[in-house]
């Protein structure tokens, strides 16, 4: 029997750049994502962080297969799952092509994608929360 505990039942598949924007291998990327990490933490989202998008494709594919499998199981048990991508980065910085293939293979719909812009006007916590809320509402309506 599964008993209740403190989990949120909300999970975000997140681009590495949104968590570690100052990593050594992101020096050439202009713009920074704002307080996305802080919002996810404060609002109780569980993270499934994708590996850095600068890795070779086979690494991203392998990670996406594992993460998509976890996500499919969360969806089966009525969790909210979203993908947080980054505008302008290859595959949204989160291996979107690999995730699409992995979810297709699992015959599970691709989770709603929330795209984070790097321009200053889109970098507020309120803006991030609004995008996440919109995605969560769409998921609820669809369900």
């Amino acid at each position, binding site marked *: *029997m*599964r*008993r209740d*505990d*403190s*989990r*949120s*039942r*909300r*999970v975000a598949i997140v681009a*590495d750049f949104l*968590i*570690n924007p*100052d*990593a*050594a*291998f992101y020096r050439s990327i202009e713009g920074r994502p704002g307080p996305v990490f802080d919002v*996810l*933490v404060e*609002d*109780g*989202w*569980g*993270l*499934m*962080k994708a*590996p*850095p998008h*600068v*890795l*070779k494709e086979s*690494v991203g594919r*392998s*990670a996406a297969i*594992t*993460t998509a*499998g*976890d996500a499919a*199981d*969360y969806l*089966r*048990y009525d*969790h909210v799952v979203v993908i947080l991508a980054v505008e302008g980065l290859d595959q949204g910085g989160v291996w979107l092509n690999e995730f699409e293939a992995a979810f297709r293979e699992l015959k599970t719909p691709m989770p709603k994608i929330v795209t984070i812009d790097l321009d200053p006007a889109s970098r507020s916590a309120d803006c991030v929360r609004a995008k996440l809320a919109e995605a969560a509402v769409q998921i609820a309506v669809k369900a």
Partner: protein
Amino acid sequence: MSGNNRRVAYVAHCLANQNAKVSEFAKCAGVVTPLIDRLRAHGYEIQQLPCPEMSFLGVARWWQSREQYDTPGYRRHCRALARTVVDTVSLHAEHGYDIVIIGLDGSPSSGVRLTSTKTSWGGRPEGAVAGGSDRISGMGVWMTELKEEFESRGLSFPRATGIAMDAQNFDMAAAMLEMDEFLVAKENI
């Protein structure tokens, strides 16, 4: 921060996602904030290990002891996950990062210094409600396979510790003081 003092912590999956915990073991909603705040304050970037229990048995899995997870099939699953982790670690190593691993002490899979034991478990699962498994020194199955993947490539296993959220009588404040000592020790090397 220059290339020489860059730091990255590879944390057990559930330390950034309590939704992956086996039922009744989630201590907070999502991210274990005291730990992540500590790591960020000490200048660590955050990488997240996969949870082999979650991907092997799902979110509705039963409680299990280390003995129950210690099978060839589960070890193969862990080793496959470990390959992707070590590939990612290589990126950080190439950029001169100091790398640490933060496991989950008390866990049958992710324990670094402490894991679980219950040789009597098996079959009808309701016996597990009385007290859970016991704790013994040693690594969980996942950490063992991850360490072996590093060593099979001729790499040293990074400095590692665990936060004992899966142990009985867990004390977050004491655990964070111990974590500070671990992180500061690295800064002083």
